């Protein structure tokens, strides 16, 4: 949207009034934007996934209690009070949504992409997940169970994708580069 859009102007009007009243400062705003632009993003979730693939004890801990397993990383970004990690297998595919708003594990994946917040995904993925996943390019065998997780409270969900074939012997750092945001939402496989 161009910066002369009605929303841009209204936002600027409100910001200028709040600053005049001393209710907000430039630093307050810049600090938040810098955090989400630079330090919070899917690279954090990728680190967790790659470690789960290479460290069986960590994988078990992550699936058993996601929040506790991830806590030592001290990721910024919030929305992580309780993390539930759901594991994809040859027989089960998981996918995450928030139909009522746009809940998302910010600290692990950053801010959600636009399609995740738009009505099309939120309305359809709970009703016709196989069709929606096929539109993302993910054709699932009819024998694969599809589990949709609609985040309707403060619990946050992360999909643990299957480790891609042909990565034997890779270390966690190299594996992390293969992990994508979409695979951790569950709309792609690796």
């Amino acid at each position, binding site marked *: 949207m161009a910066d002369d859009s009605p929303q841009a*102007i209204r936002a600027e009007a*409100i910001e200028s009034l*709040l600053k005049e009243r001393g209710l907000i400062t430039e630093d*307050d705003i810049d600090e938040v934007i810098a955090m989400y632009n630079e330090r919070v993003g899917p690279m954090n979730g990728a680190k967790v996934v790659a470690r789960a693939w290479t460290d069986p004890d960590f994988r078990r801990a992550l699936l058993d209690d996601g929040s506790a397993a991830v806590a030592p990383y001290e990721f910024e970004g919030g929305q992580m009070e309780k993390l539930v990690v759901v594991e994809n297998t040859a027989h089960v595919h998981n996918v995450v949504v928030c139909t009522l708003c746009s809940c998302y594990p910010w600290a692990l994946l950053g*801010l959600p992409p*636009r399609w995740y917040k738009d009505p099309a995904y939120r309305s359809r993925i*709970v009703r016709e997940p196989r069709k929606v996943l096929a539109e993302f390019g993910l054709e699932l065998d009819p024998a694969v169970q599809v589990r949709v997780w609609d985040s309707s409270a403060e*619990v946050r969900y992360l999909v643990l994708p299957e480790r891609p074939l042909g990565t034997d012997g890779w270390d966690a750092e190299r594996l992390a580069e293969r992990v994508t945001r979409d695979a951790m939402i569950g709309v792609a496989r690796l």
Partner: protein
Amino acid sequence: MDGIHDLGGKEGFGAIDYEVNEPVFHARWEARVFAMYLQRLGGATNIDLRRHAIERIDPRAYLTHGYYGRWLGAMETLLLEGGLLSRAEIDARVVAMGGDAASLVASRPAERPDSIPYESDLPDSIRALARRPRFAVGDRVVTRSHGVPGHTRLPAYARARCGRIVLWHAGWVFPDTNAHGLGEDPQHLYTVAFTGDELWGDSAEAGITVHLDLFEPYLQRAPDGR
């Protein structure tokens, strides 16, 4: 409330609009609104109040102003209801900046807000509960059959549906009261699994399950045989 935000299962929105290499923010104002709304100004003191303010914006704006446009409408609503700014002074500033005074404004402040801003002494949403949970993992439950005024977290598509408890998360702040300044009233929270057939009947895709995180007051024990 039976608002436009309750989108699960609605039809007609078409294909997913996927953007390759999407930036975090698409415009400067989106980032500014995001950062401002997180400052908890005025009545924006808890996450349930902030979510409910988004649900209360103009439904046309909800569908057309994008995610941060929804936040803008919610932020303005809470600033007006909290008495920090007035609609007239915002409109005047918009016009002074060359904006169109006739364009759709998302904010829909209540004349007498039912949301009473308050801030908890406790962080986040998990709360210890002395009373025991009514349900255990594996129990069959049926969800509340009707909508309620105000904020709630049972989506319409899962009303009056039978599901199975798969996780128990202990005590959590209850959004239905917290969004209205009526206290935290912590409740047991469960993850409930619903089959595709239960939710969508004959038109359901095969082999799908939908999980929702639901608070105890939304649930009753399912009658025998369901």
